[in-house]
């Protein structure tokens, strides 16, 4: 059986078309049917681009592997935005917020990889690049769909050292540096075990914006859900709040 070969340029061209198509539908008024279909298409393409990336890694093609990581993370970011839309429609507002922050974080990795690729070819990227346009759109979606959060929870945790997401060794035993990119792979400290909570602080600029207060007292002093404005099933005193203090999930990158 004859196998059809696809070139890197063709992969790149397909990626650009897919992003353009997706962005044209990336608005909250888009029909649920279209959003559901878009999520499916993006999901399968994320897996496809991830597999292209591993082929590049196996063939020691570092620049291509990094470019494919950029494409994968960009698609994951857009996928997270569509997931946000559908979660809001299901009244799963906190999950929708978490998905929106996933969108930012996937895109920040995509931007970081893009900068590495462009530094390699001697052409630094600027604000006019498409990735920054996607970021501006996500910011507009945040402002349009969610309440503003002035303060967040920030917890300090005592944890075990964990393992390296790249080589799977104990993190102290390898040479990989957290949040650096190694030929298409993003280094994370994984399998960390939380042993204790050192303290929890209320901050304006947290590392993880997923950690929001989910309750608020309305003008009548009734505790309501910060997203839906519905009164909570269990009332709270004026000095009591609900919120997410820590989010254990990690981005699915490698």
């Amino acid at each position: 059986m004859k196998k059809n070969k696809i070139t890197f340029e063709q992969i790149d061209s397909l990626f650009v078309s897919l992003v353009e198509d997706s962005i044209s539908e990336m608005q909250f008024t888009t029909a649920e049917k279209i959003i559901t279909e878009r999520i499916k298409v993006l999901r399968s393409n994320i897996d496809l681009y991830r597999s292209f990336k591993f082929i590049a890694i196996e063939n020691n093609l570092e620049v291509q592997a990094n470019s494919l990581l950029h494409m994968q993370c960009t698609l994951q970011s857009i996928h997270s935005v569509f997931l946000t839309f559908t979660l809001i429609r299901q009244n799963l507002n906190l999950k929708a917020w978490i998905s929106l922050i996933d969108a930012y974080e996937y895109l920040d990795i995509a931007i970081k990889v893009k900068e590495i690729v462009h530094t390699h070819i001697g052409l630094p990227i600027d604000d006019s690049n498409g990735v920054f346009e996607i970021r501006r759109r996500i910011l507009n979606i945040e402002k349009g769909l969610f309440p503003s959060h002035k303060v967040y929870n920030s917890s300090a945790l005592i944890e075990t050292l964990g393992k390296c997401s790249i080589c799977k060794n104990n993190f102290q035993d390898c040479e990989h540096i957290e949040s650096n990119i190694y030929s298409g792979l993003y280094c994370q400290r994984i399998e960390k075990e939380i042993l204790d909570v050192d303290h929890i602080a209320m901050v304006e600029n947290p590392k993880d914006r997923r950690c929001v207060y989910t309750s608020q007292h309305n003008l009548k002093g009734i505790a309501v859900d910060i997203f839906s404005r519905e009164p909570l099933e269990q009332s709270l005193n004026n000095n009591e709040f609900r919120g997410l203090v820590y989010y254990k999930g990690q981005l699915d990158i490698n």
Partner: protein
Amino acid sequence: MTNISITEIVDHNFSDLNYDKVIILPERKGTHVISPYASTALSFIKTLKKENIPTEFLEMPETLLEQRGVEWIGPTLLVFSSLYNSNPDFFNLLIEIIKNHVMSIYPSHQIPEVKLNINVQKTKSKKVTNVNYEGTVEGLKVLAKKLEEICDEEK
């Protein structure tokens, strides 16, 4: 905004330590059975060693303190003035490595502020000075100057 504060540490037990290395110290000493290190310590020591800066942990880390602020919170360092006396460019080099390390972690639109604690032990007097830095990566060169001034006091 750059903020540098300097404190003399009177009660310390660093006098017996090696003069030729940077020592990474645990955080929150005494509050936990095993003192945790800053969560940035494991990656940072890899960078220092890669750049040929002799560095060791005070004792092998078993736990980390993960602080979820937006800043890059570096591990607490103990630096001996002998390192600067034998290489007058030492602090500039150290600061450049810290700057590049932080910049390699984040995308360019998100380079955070840096929080650092560096303890300097003067070789002759054994006096230890704590220098606390909070500010931008660009402002770190001011920190290098301050560390040099502290070591120069003994000359």
